[in-house]
């Protein structure tokens, strides 16, 4: 298929970016979106132009690096996928595809489609962990009884890959689905109880400090999340914060 791509080009974080049009031809419908971007970049390199910078790592939907806003949606029009899992069969021959970086004040653009998501790392550092004695006499986690329901819900929350699609999608650039998932995965398990109050307070404080917006419960993040993280996690985070403050 032949496509017209409208891509956000920005030299560096201090430059003003703009949309630039490109044509790509003979794209296979079996290609992933990133493979299509590879074809474009090969074309640009061959013609002596600067290739489009974009993040990617595992290309199997778990690293959360491939942040692209495609035709007005994070990771494009398919559901439950990252950009590397988005296939060109989702588009038609002759289509014009708009590709932009994730937009949020807390996710500044570094170059072209690459954004700085270190804000997520700083939120994690503020409390997204449990303190475990690893001196050699660590207790086997399986010796602590955990109900199937709690284990399943914690696992569901833990599938968050921190890709930032929730922030990119939210009209308020809220990070509450991400933080809700990270708070929930520990709040549901006995190992997370000891530091539960400090965790939620510190992670929410860091989230606010980073300049993310407020959740207004539109539910857009849940729809666009490649891992299907539920809004229930935001409600649980709200409960955890209320509990920690009472």
């Amino acid at each position, binding site marked *: 298929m032949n496509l017209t791509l409208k891509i956000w080009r920005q030299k560096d974080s201090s430059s003003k970016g703009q949309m630039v049009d490109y044509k790509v031809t003979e794209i296979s419908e079996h290609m992933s979106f990133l493979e299509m971007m590879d074809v474009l970049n090969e074309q640009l390199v061959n013609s002596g132009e600067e290739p489009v910078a974009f993040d990617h790592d595992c290309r199997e939907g778990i690293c959360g690096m491939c942040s692209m806003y495609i035709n007005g949606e994070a990771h494009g029009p398919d559901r439950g996928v990252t950009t590397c899992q988005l296939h060109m069969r989702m588009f038609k021959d002759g289509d014009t595809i708009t590709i932009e970086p994730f937009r949020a*004040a*807390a996710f500044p653009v570094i170059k072209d489609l690459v954004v700085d998501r270190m804000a997520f790392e700083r939120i994690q550092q503020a409390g997204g962990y449990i303190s475990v004695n690893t001196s050699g006499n660590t207790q086997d986690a399986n010796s602590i009884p955990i109900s199937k329901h709690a284990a399943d819900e914690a696992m569901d929350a833990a599938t968050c890959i921190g890709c930032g699609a929730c922030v990119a999608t939210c009209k308020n650039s809220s990070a509450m689905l991400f933080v809700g998932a990270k708070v929930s995965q520990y709040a549901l398990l006995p190992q997370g109880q000891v530091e539960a109050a400090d965790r939620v307070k510190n992670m*929410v*404080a860091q989230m606010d400090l980073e300049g993310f917006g407020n959740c207004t419960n539109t539910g857009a993040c849940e*729809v666009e999340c490649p891992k299907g993280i539920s809004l229930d996690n935001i*409600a649980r985070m709200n409960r955890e914060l209320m509990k920690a403050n009472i």
Partner: protein
Amino acid sequence: MGGFFKSSIGRKVAMALSAFFLMFFLLQHLAINLLSVFNPDTFNEVSHFMGTNPVVQFALQPVLIFAVVFHFVMGFILDIKNRKANGGGYVKNNGAANSTWFSRNMIISGITILAFIVLHFIDFWFPELNVKYIQGDMSGMLPGETEFRYHEELVHKFAHPARVVAYVVAFVFLGLHLAHGFTSAFQSVGAAALRKKLNTVGNAYAILVPLGFIVIAIYHYFNH
């Protein structure tokens, strides 16, 4: 606890708590207004009670005023903060793919409701304050008569088609605001299970309450 209400989540919770109070207030307001259609005498008596009872006037009314002002001011503050958090917007954004128009535009329905409240205060509340607390007439009677004035005043107001149209439009936006706001308030206070269970109740509330007010306005227009 002070720190809690300064956090983003604390502010959401505060918005939700004021919303619960306002949604309860809307129900009682509608119940009393419906009396104007079905039983004007009772409407007059209840209106007189609400307008002169010291508990209602000096305990509940200030709470209501606080809730209304808080909900609007905090709504604007959060909207400004959220716009600042947004990285300038996309060249192409397909919001309809993942959320409803009314959930994304609570500020538009909110501003419409604010404009309506200004009109509503000019129509009813300010004249009421004038009669009772400036002129000092607490009788609730029509001048020189022995009949209550409340029903007569209400019917008189809805004789004007422009006012009826303005009220109907405002109530449609109130419905859109409630269509998202009702369940959103439950989500904000962490009651995710209730949010799902009450989805139908929320939709019914968002349709029936504004519809009730619309029916009352139109009824009085055609029966004045």
